[in-house]
């Protein structure tokens, strides 16, 4: 690929201007994340579908070149830096022609910047199909003449005007002149006045907001119907995560087992086979199983976002969440966390405010994720009688499960409430100003692609870390006695060391080792414990392991303590790895890991003593 000599065309625009859709149109599937030295944001890059000598770079959407949040600052710096270092040939500024005034405020900032760095620029006025639908027009020629740069009316959705855009890009070689007018005003409002005047002269005239939007809003934000539809939609979301993803998850698991059955006999018996079976197929397999869930969740949340509903859900949840130091936009990431923390952490990207996103990260690992489910099932089966009360209406086991789920959510909200009140706000925070996009039918292709990319990102980036930790745990559990007994391994020895830690909660070293190994992934707890109780395939056989636990005389207090410990502790390498990726440092994951471990331990200790006191 002649990338070095390719003309580099930057796309820049505000969120919701249709930039992603245009980028997808222009580049098709040939996308990858561009790497610029010193630039930390993800800039997607892609070759033009009809001209391989053109490379498009998609800069993150920003509302303004005068950045307000840390995130925006990074994006704006990436753009100016690329201009400074002469990495770009032409800049395309995308504006929404149905909201020309707002788009022009931004475009004028871009124009000034391009003038300063001597880069040709053109404006792509998107969404003209919407104008057509309302039989409205605007005057791109007039605008182009006034601004002295090309203005191309396009529709990223229908493809209208894209060939003209390509021609204009090929011809663009003159940097814009400084925009002058006879308006005299203070620096701050001059752009605004210019934009207002330009939109007045050349913009579409008339009322674009269709009444259906207002009507749908008064339904979805109605005190009764809004609340009801909110719960129905959330219920469907959960259904999709658990029911749509689980057959695929089963398939992935089966495929890994099949592969193991084919590959393992080929490897000469000994350390290599044991490594392949325990660490590669067991360890890596355990994390690949999450991929379908990430895919489905990203897809469904993307659908909600594209349809415009997500913005309404954020409005509904804003007030209650604000009490706990969060924002309405924290809702979806936290909700996703109930399935799995990892897609939840990815979803937190939509929280623009750096501080609120950070608080959201604190909450997500405490949400009752599905990896805790096997552990809860085991312990509840061992301790809570299966009989029902109130004539069969209330099952004690179900009640216990509900309580432990609730505990996780309450802990999450408590943590953010306390932390947000006790730590001062250092940086400027974004206020809650949320654009309400029109209700639209989602476009499928970009959504599927996005879900696919997210999965790829998870497998390639987080996968490396997970692999390394898996290998370390395996080595500790396998040597020096070559997997003969876990008790004699280094992991076993460590279990004996840490026994004093777990003894106050009434747990012996085997539980200590199981807890240790569960720091890799929570569900490993059941498997490790099962191995140690000498039961094959503990995952399939909950009741009998539960029976064993019962017979071993573990006190009720210890069972309750285990539940509480698992509800709070951050025992998940994948979560830590993804947090590191998303925040760009190990600081937050390490802090969270340590503080939640201590929190979990103290809570477990308290619960143990309370239960033993009263039981």
């Amino acid at each position, binding site marked *: 690929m002649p990338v070095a000599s390719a003309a580099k065309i930057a796309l820049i625009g505000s969120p919701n201007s249709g930039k992603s859709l245009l980028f997808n149109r222009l580049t098709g599937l040939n996308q990858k994340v561009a790497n610029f030295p010193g630039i930390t944001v993800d800039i997607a890059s892609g070759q033009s579908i009809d001209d391989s000598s053109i490379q498009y770079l998609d800069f993150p959407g920003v*509302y*303004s070149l*005068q950045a*307000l949040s840390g995130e925006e600052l990074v994006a704006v710096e990436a753009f100016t830096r690329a201009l400074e270092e002469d990495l770009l040939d032409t800049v395309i500024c995308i504006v929404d022609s*149905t*909201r020309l*005034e*707002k788009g022009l*405020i*931004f475009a004028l900032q871009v124009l000034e910047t391009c003038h300063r760095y001597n880069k040709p620029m053109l404006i792509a006025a998107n969404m003209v199909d919407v104008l057509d639908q309302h039989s409205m027009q605007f005057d791109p020629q007039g605008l182009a003449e006034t601004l002295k740069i090309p203005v191309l009316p396009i529709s990223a959705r229908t493809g209208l005007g894209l060939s003209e855009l390509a021609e204009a890009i090929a011809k663009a070689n003159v940097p814009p002149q400084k925009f002058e007018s006879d308006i005299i005003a203070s620096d*701050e*409002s001059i752009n*605004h006045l210019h934009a207002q005047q330009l939109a007045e002269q050349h913009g579409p005239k008339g*009322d*674009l*907001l269709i009444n259906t*939007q*207002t009507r749908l*809003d*008064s339904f979805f*934000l*109605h*005190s009764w119907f*809004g609340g009801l539809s909110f719960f129905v939609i959330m219920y469907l979301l959960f259904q999709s995560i658990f029911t749509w993803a689980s057959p695929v998850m089963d398939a992935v698991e089966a495929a890994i087992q099949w592969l193991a059955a084919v590959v393992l006999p080929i490897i000469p018996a000994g350390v290599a086979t044991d490594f392949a079976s325990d660490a590669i197929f067991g360890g890596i397999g355990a994390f690949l199983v999450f991929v379908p869930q990430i895919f489905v969740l990203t897809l469904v949340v993307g659908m909600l976002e594209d349809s415009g509903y997500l*913005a309404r859900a*954020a*409005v*509904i949840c*804003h*007030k209650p969440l*604000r009490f706990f130091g969060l924002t*309405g936009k924290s809702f979806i990431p936290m909700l996703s966390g109930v399935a799995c923390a990892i897609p939840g952490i990815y979803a937190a990207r939509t929280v623009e405010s750096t501080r609120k996103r950070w608080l959201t990260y604190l909450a997500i690992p405490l949400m009752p994720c599905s990896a805790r489910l096997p552990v809860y099932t085991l312990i509840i089966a061992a301790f809570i009688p299966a009989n029902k009360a109130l004539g069969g209406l209330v099952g004690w086991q179900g009640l216990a499960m509900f309580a432990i789920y609730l505990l996780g959510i309450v802990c999450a909200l408590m943590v953010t409430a306390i932390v947000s009140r006790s730590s001062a706000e250092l940086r*400027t925070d*974004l*206020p*809650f*100003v*949320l*654009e*309400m996009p029109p209700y639209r039918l989602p476009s499928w292709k970009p959504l599927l692609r996005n879900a696919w990319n997210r999965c790829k990102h998870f497998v390639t980036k987080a996968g490396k870390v997970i692999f390394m930790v898996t290998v370390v745990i395996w080595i500790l559990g396998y040597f020096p006695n070559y997997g003969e007994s876990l008790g004699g391994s280094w992991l076993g020895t460590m279990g004996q060391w840490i026994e004093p830690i777990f003894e106050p909660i009434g747990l012996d070293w085997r539980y200590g080792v199981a807890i240790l190994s569960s720091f890799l992934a929570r569900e490993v707890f059941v498997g490790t414990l099962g191995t140690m109780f000498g039961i094959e395939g503990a995952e399939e056989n909950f009741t009998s392991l539960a029976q064993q636990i019962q017979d071993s005389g573990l006190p009720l207090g210890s069972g309750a303590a285990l539940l509480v410990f698992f509800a709070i502790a951050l025992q998940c390498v994948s979560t830590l790895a993804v947090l590191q990726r998303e925040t760009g440092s190990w600081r937050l994951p390490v802090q969270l890991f340590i503080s939640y471990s201590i929190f979990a331990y103290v809570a477990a200790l308290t619960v143990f003593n309370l239960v033993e006191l009263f039981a």
Partner: protein
Amino acid sequence: MTLWDLTQGASAKVSSFKSNIQSGYRTRLSELGFHPGEHISCVLSPSLGAPKLYRVNNTVYSLDDSIASLIEVA
């Protein structure tokens, strides 16, 4: 009167920002269209103190009380 006091269906002109507004907020609100002189209407005011929906030009924004009460309207 502030923007937050605007009832559903009513509209008004932005007159100024409260003096205690952070300058970053003021700039951003201006860029979004909440600019002195601009007509704003409150399209929806949900119950229970949820953020209200305001329309400026052809765009609808949702603002919560903490920010809407920093904008003076007349």
